[in-house]
């Protein structure tokens, strides 16, 4: 009885702390998601897994851009993603791949960037130390094509990073994680740039794997402003100060998983649209995902996700996506 009271007290304290800070959030910095189709953010988080799996997802989305109350673009996007993890006792090796291609219908271009293609490949190694701490190393490679302006209609960006991370278990149910990423960026026509991202996360997991489980997590990534001056015929390159906050609330009843996640990205960047003369000093993007899936202890999994992705700047982008998730747990 006393144990039960302590359990519920811990749960409410955790919910209060995590959900009180922001709305819903998502992350996999301190521990892995119960939704295995979602790639981990930090390598160390993956070390808390006790299973091996492979998953694949396909998604389609449609959306539009509104500028000055008028629909100026229509988007159609599709993409695939995949996650894989091999666990051998305390040693874990994993990776993920995500890609998205967009087609844009328009009468003419307006001021403002348009994402056209993007892909991210990630690989990592993680080690669990005596069941109370984990360390991980990894890296990612991100490539994208983006419309910038009339003279830069398809600009390629390559961004790669190497990462070190750690995660610690305390008070039986709580996890804290930390990750540092050294990021390098190459972009057409501008000088190379580099910077250091720092990510912190706090998570809690309650319940038994064979019964009911609840998991909450919140994490934040701070990416500082970094500017490299122009050199010879290459223009300067500015990485704007970016803050990413993620959160997740997941409920699993035996194998039936309900997962809600939110990721909010805020970029401090001044922009004035020459078409409307409106200006803004920051871009805010919010991605919200709700998923339902069947995730057994072993065997075939299947599920779906609805995703809403909005960007508020001088313009407003609004995407609705549906994702089909399949996978196998060994």
């Amino acid at each position: 009885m006393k144990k039960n009271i302590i359990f519920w007290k811990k749960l409410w304290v955790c919910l209060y702390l995590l959900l009180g800070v922001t709305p819903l959030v998502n992350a996999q910095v301190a521990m892995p998601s119960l939704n295995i189709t979602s790639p981990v953010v930090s390598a160390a988080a993956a070390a808390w897994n006790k299973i091996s799996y492979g998953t694949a997802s396909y998604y389609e989305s449609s959306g539009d851009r509104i500028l000055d109350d008028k629909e100026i673009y229509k988007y159609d996007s599709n993409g695939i993603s995949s996650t894989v993890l091999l666990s051998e006792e305390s040693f874990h090796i994993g990776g993920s791949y995500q890609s998205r291609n967009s087609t844009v219908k328009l009468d003419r271009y307006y001021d403002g960037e348009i994402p056209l293609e993007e892909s991210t490949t990630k690989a990592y190694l993680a080690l669990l130390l005596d069941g109370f701490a984990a360390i991980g190393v990894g890296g990612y490679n991100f490539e994208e094509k983006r419309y910038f302006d009339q003279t830069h209609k398809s600009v390629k960006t390559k961004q790669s990073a190497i990462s070190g991370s750690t995660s610690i278990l305390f008070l039986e149910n709580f996890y804290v994680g930390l990750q540092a990423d050294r990021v390098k960026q190459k972009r057409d026509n501008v000088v190379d740039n580099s910077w250091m991202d720092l990510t912190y996360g706090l998570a809690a997991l309650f319940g038994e794997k064979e019964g009911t489980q609840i998991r909450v997590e919140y994490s934040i990534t701070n990416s500082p402003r970094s500017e490299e001056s122009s050199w010879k015929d290459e223009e300067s390159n500015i990485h704007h100060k970016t803050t990413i906050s993620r959160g997740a609330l997941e409920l699993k009843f035996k194998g039936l998983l309900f997962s809600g996640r939110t990721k909010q990205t805020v970029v401090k960047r001044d922009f004035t649209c020459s078409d409307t003369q409106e200006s803004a000093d920051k871009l805010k993007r919010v991605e919200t995902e709700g998923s339902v899936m069947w995730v057994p202890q072993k065997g075939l999994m299947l599920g779906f996700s609805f995703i809403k992705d909005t960007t508020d700047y001088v313009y407003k982008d609004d995407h609705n996506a549906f994702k089909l998730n399949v996978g196998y747990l060994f």
Partner: protein
Amino acid sequence: MKQYLYLSIFFFMMLLPASGYGQIVTPSLDPGLVSESPSAVSWRFGSTFGMETAFGNQKDEETKTRKIGSYPNSGYGGVIAIQPSHVTGELSYKADEIRYDPVYSIDSNGETSFVLQKVNASYGRFQLAIRGENKYSVGVGLYRLTEEIGDQTVDKSSYTGSFGFRFLDNLFMSAGLEQGQTDAEGFDRLKWQIFFSGVAVQMGDPTSNMMRLEGSIKTSPKESTENSDKQTYNHKRFQEYQGSFELLWSEFLFSAMYKKKDTESAQDEIKDSSHEKTRFGLGYRTIGVSIMLYGSRSIDRCDETENETDEIQLTFSYSYI
């Protein structure tokens, strides 16, 4: 037992803002009919190859005059459902569904009147579901529809995700979301959502005697878009309630279904409309060959106007476990 309690609470929380319809929770005992929600597909009894055709006529209550030719073809289609294990896939297609939708307006005397607008529709649906521990079901669906309305072509597509669970052996619950878009020529893209949920009771043995009772509700908020001439194209707000009862007695299946859909008018001067459908069916149903004959009557109402549609539907299917 605790997880059932949590699931029930979660389910009812979803039910409050949402609603649903039809064969949302469990599939019809007639294997030739297509499930209306992907998670319901999990509760099929084996694999099925089926086909259907339907004929109908329409008349308005005031004149009793048939507005269209007698018994026009109102579509033919097929369904293939494969259930090798705890995974079930269902592919269905319906072509040349000809129907006449009432379009309401206000005449010079200020009274509501309508014209019947011919719609030629073809659609396909794919649904995939997984069943866990014979208690839980999660499913996904893809739906594509093309409608020819006069000289205009309208394309609709949607994705559906739903989940369901069974407890106390015979009670089933389900909820889900359909998210879609409509592309009509000349108009901005129209995005819409439909929420649905339902409860069903199913008792007996599908190889001998069985009873199925289901109630469901479905709701969708209003969305609209416009073209360059400021004309609007609407996805009207609606609520749909449906109840069905089926009884399998030895090898004979009796089916009854009632559906009511209330649609909010897109224009202030026109009143809201409703569509009511009652359907009865009787046929031969085995794990093997099934043949069902359905007769239905639909009534569309708006203000004082009434438009009546009668339809006969025939399904034939072959199933195996």
